[in-house]
């Protein structure tokens, strides 16, 4: 078991012929992920790398292939449109990798998504990986831009706002022989789809997830919201790391959402909220896996 996606998930790539989209489609195909269609308006009927059919619209790709998930590698000015195309094609999940989307576009996307069935991961996220049982976790579902080989099939769920910091935590687990059920990047933008809390609830329900790692960072209140729910509802062991203890206030630390403003969104406040919920805190990013394994 896993959350959101598994090795049988059929995936569409929106923007499959772009440099970035093509590179990561190939890596996902190499990983054994069922990338079964691409969408590029105007290139319908062609094949990507002589094997993946390209469609003009998401609706057509879904109808022809039975795909349920789409990953979006479309440049920022067109990304909101691409997300909503996936939403109105009634896919289960849209994963938006694109960074630098204007925040007003994402506000409108979220508004338009109310009452629809589609879940959104991102934008500005590394995607989602459910490791497979093959060599180097081959045969799993890799959607987005994570390096596949760092994973290992197992029972730890990972939810994070960051990309490379997630890889760091996953690699620590894998190096210690501990596998993951699913690793989810929720993205570094101030407005995004699924939150830490949404993912934690899913991990809590998933019988195959035995422990959870949360990676947070300064800005917003996603971590505090998750902590409040965990305090009353989650019985699984959880470890957390919050990045940005040394970040100066008022400065945007790379991610659009990573900013301490008005004294809000500090790492200290998030760590305090997690402690109150009995979440184990990793003192440094090098101790994330060990912090969880100690309480398992």
């Amino acid at each position, binding site marked *: 078991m896993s959350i959101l996606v598994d090795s049988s998930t059929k995936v569409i790539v929106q923007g499959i012929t772009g440099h970035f989209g093509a590179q990561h489609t190939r890596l996902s195909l190499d990983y054994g992920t069922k990338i079964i269609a691409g969408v590029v308006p105007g290139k319908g009927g062609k094949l990507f790398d002589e094997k993946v059919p390209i469609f003009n619209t998401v609706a057509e790709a879904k109808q022809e292939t039975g795909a349920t998930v789409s990953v979006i590698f479309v440049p920022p000015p067109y990304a909101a449109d691409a997300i909503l195309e996936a939403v109105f094609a009634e896919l289960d999940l849209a994963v938006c990798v694109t960074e630098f989307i204007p*925040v007003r576009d994402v506000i409108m996307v979220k508004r338009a998504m109310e009452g629809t069935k589609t879940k959104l991961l991102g934008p500005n996220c590394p995607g989602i990986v459910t490791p497979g049982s093959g060599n180097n976790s081959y045969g799993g579902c890799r959607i987005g831009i994570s390096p596949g080989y760092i994973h290992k099939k197992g029972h730890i769920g990972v939810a994070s706002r960051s990309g490379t910091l997630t890889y760091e935590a996953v*690699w620590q687990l894998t190096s210690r022989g501990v596998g993951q059920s699913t690793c989810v990047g929720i993205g570094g933008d*101030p407005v995004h789809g699924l939150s830490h809390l949404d993912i934690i609830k899913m991990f809590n329900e998933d019988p195959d997830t035995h422990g959870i790692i949360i990676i947070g960072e300064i800005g917003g*209140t996603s971590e505090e919201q998750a902590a409040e729910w965990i305090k009353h509802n989650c019985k699984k062991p959880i470890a957390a790391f919050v990045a940005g203890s040394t970040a100066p206030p008022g400065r945007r*630390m*790379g991610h659009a959402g990573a900013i301490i403003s008005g004294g809000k969104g500090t790492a200290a406040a998030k760590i305090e909220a997690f402690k109150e919920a009995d979440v184990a805190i990793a*003192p440094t990013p090098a101790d994330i896996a060990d912090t969880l394994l100690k309480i398992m």
Partner: protein
Amino acid sequence: MNIHEYQAKQLLSKHDVPVPPGKLCKTPEEARSVAGKLFGLGYSRVIVKSQIHAGGRGKGVFKNGKRGGVKICKNLTEAYINAKNMLGNVLVTKQTGPEGKLVRKVLVEVALDVQQELYVGVVLDHSIGRPVMITCKEGGMDIEEVAATNPQSIVREVIDPAIGLMPFQARRIAINLGLNSELLTLTVKLLQGLYKTWWECEATLVEINPLHIFRQADGQQNLVAVDGKVVLDDNALFRHPELVELRDYDEESPLEVEASNYNLSYIKLNGNIACLVNGAGLAMATMDIIKYYGGDPANFLDVGGGASPEQVAAAFKIIASDPNVKVILVNIFGGIMQCDIIANGIISAVNDHQFKIPIIVRLEGNKSDIARQILKDSGLNLISATTMADAAEKAVKAASKPVQVAA
């Protein structure tokens, strides 16, 4: 992107928010002439305001010893002298840091008699993904302080982005602020203009603090935005060429400007261990672990995804321009970026800059095996690290050693 007060007021004014009559001035003579015109219109006082990208100007102190970056003047001589004391001088405020900011422009405006000061602003609420109008009866104060000491006085109104701020919401806010008589209609118009500024300019923050209630010569009450702040969404600027024009490079750190030209995310800090990291979360975490082991990061630097060797070289160039740097810590976990690209970038940068300072390199992820081999074969004196903890410890240790002078 931050802009100046006078620019924020231009944007607000364009969206029907009343601002005081006035003009931007670059010389004391100009300030005197503008003040003369305003006195000529029958106003009894003008205000001279330093234009810098930082708050706390009124209580700020100039490095020439003069106090106050904002001054009320009753005559032409006062306007001239105050402008002269400000222009060309460095103003230190609570927000500028000890180095302060050079005042290159002043705004000269009419100063009206205040009956009441209010706070109104629009921000983005991250947790609900919607704009929120924030208002408070205590204007002119630091709203963050008010939020901490008297949170009940702050009223929030969530705005549905599909319909905008409806008049009934604006009326509710106005009545909450106690503006329920002759000012109601004017307030509704002003608040809708405030929200429209936020929406149309794609701002992340629009703030009027204070908003003044004053009595006109005819006895009628009116409203005016005495101070305005607008922060724009960098990611939306491609749609707003007219707003891009408002960028003032003089207000930004030259190194940060150069970094942004290479699409690098760089923030200068005060330590001596430079970090070169891929990914914002990992870059923050690298700063954190340096601090944990007793060191001080010199910067935040995220080379981002898909960084080319040119970008990596630019990152080293920026680091090399910071004289405080004693050690460089490269921490790369390759997901988007391939470690062999980084390895080649490191080699060419180290060769270009002839770095004499220790460089600790930790590479993990995509093609990290090849990358490690490339670095090893380079014959350069790079200190290899395995984990983040190992890298941080080595960097802190190297930074605490006295600088070695090359033979």
